[in-house]
């Protein structure tokens, strides 16, 4: 199934919500009750109350005396304008252009799907003809190392690891040494999940970044923040805090195959302007896809309106 269809299917529920509201909008002109429905649909997509309030304001201003279909187009255009800068080239292109080894540091709060995404990304890069290396720097969570190892075996990628409880920075250090010795193309570092409010754990990431840069000037080349697609407004707080501490260079939004819409992306794109490198739309390895703003907005609203 194509990415677009998959996403559309995933987003079906909201789309129906938004769409039916919008159809009525088209039929009846901009009437407050209908506006309220549109607002509700956007809110239920986790777009966030502030962004929604702003959009509704624009719609109301614009709506007076104009064709409702036009207003709807405006709403879509507004969302697209916000999300377009977040669209990025495929990671493969970026990596090919960048230095070797290209180092990707995967970070995020607990349970967002870092390990799974890192493994799927490694598999994708391998299929593109590159040699990836996985580094199991989550030495905290029980069996996190085993989880990555099993993935490594499955996709045929080497995993650098220490024992559970080891200093994650030491694993990173070894990972870089191994990457240099083996001449790999990409190093993917899987770190332990941590809440963005824990100062000492955030400092640990800073240290990892420092050591990376010392061992390989310029590294990490990509600091990839993984967000859970079902996350609410806290997603913005997460992105802000990680960005402030480390300088996030790309986002991965996972678990979009449920009924989650990932609307918080709108607020993040507006506020932080971080490109979205990947979206996860399913369990399979090929379900880790590139983000396209137009398709995201279209899927949210339904193309046929």
């Amino acid at each position: 199934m194509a990415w677009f269809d998959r996403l559309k299917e995933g987003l079906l529920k909201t789309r129906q919500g938004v769409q039916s509201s919008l159809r009525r909008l088209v039929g009846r002109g901009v009437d407050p009750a209908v506006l309220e429905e549109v607002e509700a649909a956007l809110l239920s997509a986790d777009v966030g109350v502030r962004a929604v309030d702003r959009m509704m304001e624009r719609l109301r201003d614009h709506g007076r005396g104009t064709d409702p279909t036009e207003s709807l187009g405006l709403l879509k255009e507004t969302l697209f304008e916000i999300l377009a800068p977040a669209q990025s080239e495929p990671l493969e292109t970026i990596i090919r252009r960048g230095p070797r080894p290209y180092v990707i540091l995967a970070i995020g709060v607990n349970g967002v799907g870092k390990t799974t995404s890192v493994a799927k990304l490694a598999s994708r890069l391998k299929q593109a003809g590159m040699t990836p290396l996985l580094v199991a720097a989550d030495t905290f969570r029980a069996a996190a190392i085993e989880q990555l190892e099993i993935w490594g075996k499955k996709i045929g990628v080497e995993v650098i690891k220490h024992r559970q409880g080891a200093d994650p920075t030491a694993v990173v250090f070894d990972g870089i040494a191994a990457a240099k010795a083996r001449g790999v193309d990409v190093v993917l570092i899987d770190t332990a999940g941590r809440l963005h409010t824990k100062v000492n754990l955030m400092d640990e990431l800073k240290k990892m970044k420092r050591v990376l840069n010392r061992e390989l000037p310029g590294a990490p080349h990509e600091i990839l923040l993984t967000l859970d697609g079902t996350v609410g407004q806290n997603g913005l707080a997460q992105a802000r805090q990680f960005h402030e501490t480390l300088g996030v260079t790309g986002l991965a939004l996972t678990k979009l195959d449920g009924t989650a819409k990932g609307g918080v992306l709108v607020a993040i794109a507006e506020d932080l302007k971080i490109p979205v490198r990947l979206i996860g739309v399913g369990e399979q390895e090929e379900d880790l896809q590139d983000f396209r703003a137009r398709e995201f907005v279209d899927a949210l609203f339904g193309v046929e309106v």
Partner: protein
Amino acid sequence: MFSALTEKIEKVFKKLRGQGVLTEQNVAEALKEVRLALLEADVNFKIVKDFIGRVQEKAVGREVLESLSPGHQVIKIVWEELRDLMGQDHAGLSLSSVPPTVMMLVGLQGSGKTTTCGKLGRMFKHQGKRPLLVAADPRRPAAGDQLASLGSDLDVTVHRADQEGASRSDVVRLCTEGLARGRDHGYDVVIFDTGGRLHVDDELMLELEDIKRAVNPHEVLLVADAMTGQEAVNVAERFDERVGLTGVILTKIEGDARGGAVLSIRAATGKPIKFLGIGEKADALEVFHPDRMASRILGMGDVLTLIEKAQEAFSKEEAESLQRKVASNTLTLEDFREQILQVNKLGSFDQILSMLPGGERLKTMAGAQEGGLPEKEMKRVVAVIDSMTPRERRDHTLLNGSRKKRIARGSGTSVQEVNRLIKQFLGARTMMKSLVGGGPGKPGKLRKRRKLIRALPSF
């Protein structure tokens, strides 16, 4: 973003000071802030709408209680409504009279089921019961290893399959075996850690139904991430439809997520929240109290839990003697040191701050400070005081240049740091005095806050 709600509402009402009755207009203005705040806390938008309507109805026309400002009055109504939404009292686990009690943890991927399973195991063990954990997630690589590793750390038995087999009947068979083992070997509680699954994944939801039929659990608990957005209600409703939930465990609550999801799940499905996951360690599991959560959602902190913890850590006599000393301004560095160590007993600085009103903001401030790790800082302070002689600790005025130099050397710090500590100590002494409100003059800040807290019925 949320902790400022109380402040914002007070601001709305500041203009209206002296009014005896809450009018439609001033209530509406305050409720606009409440709506914004609730939506930002990820409370389901439908629930927010109903909620605001109900509060408005209750608030308008009500006479302002003598002890409360109009702003506090509205907050009180909001607080009561929030508490009621989450179910007035806390709901315990229903334990079977004939052991083993069978529990099943279900939820989305990454919500924290396995970690929570370990925490529950630890809790039951501490209560003197024999828990058995069953690793019923054949799909996520190393999920069984994770539970086994938690189990061995906690000295709790884990039942798991010999190999990772993924068919539906394999999982059901494993669960049946786990239950039989629990029953035959006299375990008190058997907890099934099922794999994460999407609520719309029909195949996997069927598996869950099969497991439920096979083990016939007393408790089916949904493990949900506190950071979940509007999706929370969908997820809970779907799981409830398929396997009939008996309650919810909310995880990752120790961050800055307000946990609006809690409110939504309870209000939409009527299922009580039973526990909160408040950290990564095995003991970070707390019984859920709706009234306290209401305070947290309003950014008022969870003073009650803090008080309970403090009561465990301090004796009454200690507290009284401290209060006397503070009021008479005879607090010494020795007491100061004692205080710091006592505070450490309450939990990490982070956890304590989150329980205080406006604590989230304090946390950011503390984190932003140069070298601002409060825990480290506290250790240094204790080290400096430890390097003083007993006499110096009782009388800080003795400290001259050469004594300070000696102390700095002894504690591995510098004279500047010793000076800073003394300044901090004196500052803290003055501040504590104003909080206790010992002397004449204005009532302390704490007293004012207490007035509000007292007005909230269950406090």
